[in-house]
């Protein structure tokens, strides 16, 4: 399989799909309006960004210290902490916990890390029932699709699509009302919660100082996942750690504002252990799995280390002109948009995924919007540089050599221009066809005509008069 060719094909199809474009652009315009309104409530959004970036810098650049602190605090209060270098190891650990509990059904709240390690496939293959409980994730799971967007998983679907899907998969009556559709999912998922043996969550932050996992959500599905089943498993990337509890006073409103435009997401919950003595509910066992999965390789790249500051708010996707036109599934990656284009080459191989770094207008909208100031569009350039350093593109090199040979010699340059004017006359014979040497350009674009005379020629003629 060729990821670059697939990307091109899908991008070409989707940019022509007007219905898709209308859907995405409408949703994202709505987002921009509320986000700007909320940003305006901050007394100084730029200073808040800088502070958030500095806090993340501190955490990521002293990751060993904060991880040790986090794990010590978690273990002291009865949480079992596991470490996984690879996705495969994380899957094995989770399967081990589930088998040991003789569990049958697993309820999940949104976790991009679980998408990253293809957990659902592994669990289903092993014969367990896994149900996504976030409404958007539930919808894409029913469609057997990956999430379209890291924050809005089903933003590519209309209410009609979802009604049709629910009628087919759940046997519900068709409806065009988003509230009715939400209530259908609520009823189905309530039963799943009551019956689930294991609850699996992701995490937005982990607090080293107090040994807590922080989960941000709007629906209450993560809270139910962490309240009802007997076993709770949290899968988180090692970069999620924050030094202090109070850091959340900054990060929670920033995540909400950048992510959805809310000042604060509906539920921001902290989990510091299993059910403690004197508590009447909550899981008996709490497992936390710390996942590396190539994060330490990104950490080793000092130039791009700040990509690990990412809080997965999705803001860079929302403003990206590429994302807005090609859509989330086109990327073929767990993390799409600018941040996905930056980190996927580190997670899955530079040569196979370098094409994403070229799918950019380098407009810098992503860097400007990022709440933790990741230097996103520069990292795209660095990926291009690293890719061609590692594996030089010979044709490109040759082309630039040829170009240099022409433009460095005025005589040759004049000759080429004259030849161009002549060849241009016969160009219409092949323009836009495969016989056209400029086909890569002319199949979708006009080729501007070469001027009848150059400026120098014009000047000479003018003075001669």
């Amino acid at each position, binding site marked *: 399989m060729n990821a670059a060719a697939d990307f091109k094909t899908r991008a070409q199809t989707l940019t022509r799909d007007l219905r898709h474009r209308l859907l995405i652009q409408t949703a994202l315009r709505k987002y921009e309006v509320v986000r700007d309104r909320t940003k305006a409530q901050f007394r100084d959004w730029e200073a808040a960004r800088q502070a958030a970036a500095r806090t993340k810098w501190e955490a990521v650049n002293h990751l060993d210290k904060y991880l040790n602190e986090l794990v010590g605090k978690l273990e002291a209060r009865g949480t079992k902490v596991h470490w996984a270098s690879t996705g495969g190891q994380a899957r094995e650990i989770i399967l081990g916990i589930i088998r040991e509990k003789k569990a049958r059904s697993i309820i999940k709240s949104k976790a991009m890390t679980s998408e990253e390690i293809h957990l659902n496939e592994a669990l289903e293959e092993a014969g367990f029932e896994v149900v996504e409980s976030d409404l958007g994730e539930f919808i894409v799971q029913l469609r057997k699709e990956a999430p379209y967007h890291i924050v809005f998983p089903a933003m590519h679907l209309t209410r009609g699509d979802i009604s049709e899907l629910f009628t087919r998969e759940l046997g519900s009556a068709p409806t065009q009302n988003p509230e009715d559709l939400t209530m259908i999912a609520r009823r189905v998922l309530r039963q799943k919660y009551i019956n689930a043996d294991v609850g699996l969550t992701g995490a937005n932050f982990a607090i080293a100082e107090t040994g807590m996992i922080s989960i941000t959500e709007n*629906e209450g599905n993560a809270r*139910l996942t962490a309240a009802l089943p007997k076993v709770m498993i949290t899968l988180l990337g090692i970069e999620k750690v924050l030094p202090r509890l109070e850091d959340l006073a900054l990060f929670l409103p920033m995540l909400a504002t950048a992510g959805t435009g809310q000042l604060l997401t509906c539920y921001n919950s902290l989990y510091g252990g299993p059910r403690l003595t004197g508590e009447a509910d909550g899981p008996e066992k709490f497992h936390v799995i710390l996942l590396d999965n190539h994060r330490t390789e990104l950490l080793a790249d000092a130039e791009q280390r700040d990509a690990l500051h990412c809080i997965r708010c999705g803001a860079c996707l929302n403003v990206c002109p590429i994302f807005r036109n090609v859509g989330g599934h086109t990327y073929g990656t767990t993390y799409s948009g600018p941040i996905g284009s930056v980190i996927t080459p580190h997670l899955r191989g530079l040569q196979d995924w370098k094409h994403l770094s070229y799918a950019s207008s380098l407009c810098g909208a992503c860097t400007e919007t990022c709440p933790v100031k990741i230097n996103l569009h520069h990292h795209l350039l660095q990926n291009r540089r690293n890719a061609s350093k590692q594996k030089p593109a010979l044709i490109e090199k040759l082309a630039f050599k040829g170009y240099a040979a022409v433009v460095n010699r005025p005589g040759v340059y004049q000759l080429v221009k004259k030849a161009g004017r002549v060849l241009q006359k016969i160009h219409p014979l092949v323009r836009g066809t495969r016989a056209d040497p400029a086909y890569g350009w002319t199949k979708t674009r006009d080729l501007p005509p070469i001027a009848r005379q150059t400026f120098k020629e014009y000047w000479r003629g003018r003075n001669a008069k």
Partner: protein
Amino acid sequence: MSEKEQILARVREALKSPASHPGDAHAHPQPASALAPSNTSRQWLPAVGETFEDQMQLFRKNAADLKADFHLVEGWEQASRVLMKLRDQERWQRVGAHKGDLTGAACAALGLPVCHTDRPYDLAALESCDAGITECDALIAQTGSVLVTSRSAGGRALSVLPPHHVVLARREQLLSDLLAGFELLKRKYSDNYPSFISFITGPSRTGDIERVLVLGAHGPKKLTIVCL
């Protein structure tokens, strides 16, 4: 070497090459800790007002924007009238609650069967409750949030499983901002934190279908805050 040691070894190896600070990509890396005192963030976040009245007004406004019902009442008489009105309007048959001064008085006033969640309880019984009545640790003016913990609000499920969450709070529990909330948690629980802490900001909601706001996605469709 265990997996833990291997990962930590890779982390230490990776961090040997220093990264420049955010915002100054071309400057030399600064070795010192970048952590500013945590209370400095306050000056950049949304303003809350100086006086108690300002903050109460802000909480009221935020609650209204979030579609939560907020009642600021004078004394217990008024509070129980609010509760009884809700009971009659929504035809409550049974409520969930935990032990506490305010919740105890509320249950007595309502005169309904109560599922108590501070001792082992039946999940199906709680699921069939029409409302969950809890106390809280604090109200946050800045965001219109209710701060609850498993200790102050009857565990993890009571405030999320029933379709209506009713919070009983006292005026003096109003705090200015999130930072004050975290400071309170530290003062109150220091080294013995409850296993669950949550900032509840409005009733459960989703916008996953065409970005249309729907209340009551998985948690409560209604959030009522009665402040005495």
